[in-house]
């Protein structure tokens, strides 16, 4: 009887925590981890925001890199996601200086170096704009991340683009350690980053 009372008391205490959204008492990682974690450190793309210099996916000691595949004509998914990244970095605070962001265009025909750079840097100061006209290179990078895309023109002459809505997090050594699916909020992303920096 006493045990039952204790259990009930615990349940009652726990209920308000679960009432609206998820509790913050424990902090499990919101991002998904693939097994084995892909190695992307050997891949590279030209960085349009740095005059086309070679950009490798190895952020280096103490740094992390968030990678996103998108395009600037994207009216819904890309701005929604990059807004959350922007808000997440603001939440992370001081450590945000150790997080780099790179957007890779899957639509290089319409995204100029300049437009892509302005686009990503609207959200993240110093964000990298990765763009190549060589589809073989782009495909190789996308495959490395497990990301997919297609750009086609329909019967009406409109360009149709598909792309993965995922954000990828790369660790200092170039290992893709986390994936944040579309729809995850800034708080969850920021919490994951804070947890990672706490472990480092």
């Amino acid at each position, binding site marked *: 009887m006493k045990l039952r009372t204790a259990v009930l008391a615990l349940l009652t205490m726990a209920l308000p925590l679960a009432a*609206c*959204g998820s509790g913050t008492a424990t902090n499990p990682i919101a991002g998904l981890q*693939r097994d084995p974690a892909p190695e992307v450190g050997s891949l590279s793309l030209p960085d349009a925001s740095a005059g086309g210099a070679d950009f490798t996916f190895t952020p280096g000691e103490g740094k992390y890199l968030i990678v996103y595949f998108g395009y600037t*004509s994207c009216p819904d998914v890309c701005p929604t996601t990059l807004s959350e990244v922007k808000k997440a970095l603001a939440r992370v605070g001081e450590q945000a200086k150790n997080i780099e962001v790179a957007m890779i265009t899957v639509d290089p025909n319409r995204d100029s170096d300049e437009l892509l750079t302005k686009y990503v840097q609207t959200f993240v100061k110093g964000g990298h704009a990765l763009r190549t006209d060589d589809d073989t290179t782009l495909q190789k990078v996308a495959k490395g991340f*497990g990301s997919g895309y297609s750009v086609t023109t329909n019967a009406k002459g409109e360009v149709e683009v598909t792309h993965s809505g995922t954000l990828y997090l790369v660790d200092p050594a170039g290992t893709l350690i986390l994936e944040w699916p579309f729809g995850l909020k800034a708080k969850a992303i920021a919490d994951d980053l804070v947890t990672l920096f706490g472990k480092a």
Partner: protein
Amino acid sequence: MNGMRMNLTSPARTRRVRRMVGCTLAVSFLSIGVAACGSDGESQGVKTPPESTIGQLGVTGQWARATIADAKNTALYFTVVSAANDRLTGVSVDASVAARAEMHQTMTMTSDSGAAGGEMQMGPVDGIDIEANTPFVFEPGGYHVMLFDVAKPLVEGDTITVTLSFKVHGTMTLDVPVLSEAP
């Protein structure tokens, strides 16, 4: 293609809409600036325009996303509630705003790579059935109105005029505030 759409309007979406409805109703009926659920203070200070109505049909929570850098396309969102069944058959804007407006749905295709999320794709929709007393929510990552080729950049603080055409209730002219991110 159709099969995929059917999948997407299944329970997951219904649940999300219901959750949204809860918050939307809380905002519109209690007239408080911050929603009860899921808010972490980021939406404070955003002025929500008053509900627009024609007969027993109302539209709330409308906003258009500010254009980014020199990008030419953007999207707008709102929620429709009607006391009677209806169908949203068209959305239009003046040429001084954008070349054209289209209702679109963002869909997630199933992934075959083992990655976290499938590829996302947008597709136009001809119209949207509005079920009586069931709010229909246009929101990021779901249904949205796409504005193609804006005449000039949409900047936070601007208001654009959008015309919605309903089969039963007729035409509604809506003032839509431009915001840089979701309210």
